[in-house]
């Protein structure tokens, strides 16, 4: 959590889209920006890029107000996927309330995916986050392409981990909201347990998800 100010009635949360370079993290945010209503969210801020590659991060901010008057802000970030930007990834990952791991479904990207996932595990522990307690969802992106990891294989690999996984084509806009919504749900449960979103602030899970994912 970035910030929680009870007096000011403000809570600032952070979600991070993590994954190997060019797996479609920025495209995910672009699609969320395109598909979701302007109400309660800001513009997509794309920090300097180099040949369409993210060097800093992208940011899509959301905000809503709980019935108690608590203003909740959710900032969604992407990280640069390239190996050399590890320091930036760590910086962005600090105090994250949830992570969506965007994997590239293409068979050729298997190694990159697993290296990036290892890197996520390492960096989570470096910034002091417990991987077992941090909301985490996996997205297998680029399902529109050929020569991709088959669905049954994904199922057999990921079902035992208990981590929710989603199939998506960010380019076509499929599975993007589902992934986001899945992550928001896990984050809600986590924050609710600690801060009583429902009990203290009257914010129901359904309402929260609906407000955050209203389409245009």
């Amino acid at each position, binding site marked *: 959590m970035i*910030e929680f100010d009870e007096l000011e009635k*403000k809570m600032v949360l952070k979600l991070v889209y993590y994954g190997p370079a060019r797996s479609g993290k920025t495209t995910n945010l672009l699609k969320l920006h395109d598909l979701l209503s302007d109400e309660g*969210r*800001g513009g997509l801020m794309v920090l300097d890029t180099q040949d369409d590659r993210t060097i800093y991060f992208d*940011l899509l*901010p959301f905000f809503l107000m709980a019935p108690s008057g608590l203003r909740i*802000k959710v900032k969604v970030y992407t990280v640069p996927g390239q190996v050399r930007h590890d*320091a930036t990834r760590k*910086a962005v990952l600090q105090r994250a309330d949830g992570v969506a791991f965007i994997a590239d479904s293409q068979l050729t990207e298997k190694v990159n995916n697993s290296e990036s996932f290892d890197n996520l595990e390492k960096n989570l522990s470096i910034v*002091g986050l417990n991987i077992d307690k941090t909301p985490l969802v996996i997205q297998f992106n680029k399902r529109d392409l050929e020569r991709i990891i088959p669905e049954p294989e994904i199922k057999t690999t990921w079902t035992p981990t208990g981590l929710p996984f989603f199939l998506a084509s960010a380019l076509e806009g499929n599975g993007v909201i589902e992934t986001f919504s899945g992550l928001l749900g896990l984050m809600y449960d986590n924050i609710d347990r600690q801060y009583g979103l429902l009990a203290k602030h009257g914010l129901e899970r359904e309402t929260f998800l609906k407000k955050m994912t209203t389409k245009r």
Partner: protein
Amino acid sequence: MSIEERLSFIIGEEKELRDILTGEEILPLLERALKVGPLAARLLDQIGTVLWGVGHVETEKVLSVNCPLYLEGEKTGQIVLFGHENRQSELLIIAEFIAGTVNAMIVNNLKRMLTTEIHTTIVNQSYEELAASEAKYRDLAEKLEVKVEQRTSDLKQAHTILLQQEKMAAIGQLAAGVAHEINNPLGFIASNLNSLKKYSERFIEMIALYRQTIGKLSLPRETAVEFDDTWRKLKMDFIIADTEELLIQSLDGCKRVTKIVADLKAFSHIDDGGIVVIDINTELERILNVLSHWIPADAVIQKKFADLPGYPCDAAAVSQVFLNIIQNAIQTRESGLQLDLETIHDRNKIKVIISDNGPGMAPEVVKRIFDPFFTTREVGKGTGMGLATAYETMQSLGGRIEVDSKPGCGSIFIITFPVSEAVNV
């Protein structure tokens, strides 16, 4: 210092308009605006506080228009323009224009700030990592130092062992030299004693004949008494009986000295420089002989020797190995010693197993017995060098020494020789 402590920014920390905009940017913009109509212009924050403003509002016939400012999509302030009542639509356009410009400024400044923030964060983190890697480097240097120390002590140890081996060789040479010197006089002593024994037998025989003859003669009484008195006074009966005994004992002693000298010479292998073929069983026997003086009288020694092939080696060094271990074994007990020597020929190795029923050793002692200068006995009895030298010798032969020992259970030393080079003696 933890990352948390060094961190001056958290990516995503909330900001306000006053953090993002500066008077230097806003005031010229507002002043420009006044030139085209408005009487006054203000930039207000979320709760209506004027952050920057220009112009005065004095007359009554004034109206105001406002336009919102956004920060990350949220309304966080506004631009307010004051002007003449009849200029409302104009004011609105100008306000719209200024707000648009300020909103673009907000986004750009925010981007720049975020970029700077992440830079700062990364620099801090890199500093952390640098410090960490520096620590790692220091650690490495320390490890290197330890390694150098280790290596130095290894070299020292090797040097000491070499010195010891040289010393042993010198002692062996000395012993062999002394043995050689003893051999010659010993030879004539023995042969003379043998002659003396024969001569004395003749003396005795002759004396007996004299006595017998004198007894038959009728001598004056006085002379006869003197004869008998002197015979008794000189204890001639005892002397005659004892002379033979003395000579037998002396000859026996001579034989023993001869054997010891021969063993000592053989054991030192002084005559066979370099590699010779030895029979390990014979070497063991010889060592028991050399050590015979130190073996407690009531000791029980069991030998179980297998038929062994001849073993080519530096014989002096190998017998040193046996000597050291057996010497240790016989020192474990002053009485009730049971010493077992066993040799085994097993395809490509020869094993010599030397076990005692001494007090045994604790694991931490076992671990160190092959260290030079390590000794459990009081100063003077052992240099503590023997086992280290033995260990070194076996290693150079491609063999090894193993120890099995527990307190209260005696010790077993197993010496293994590789025998690819074994030949028949």
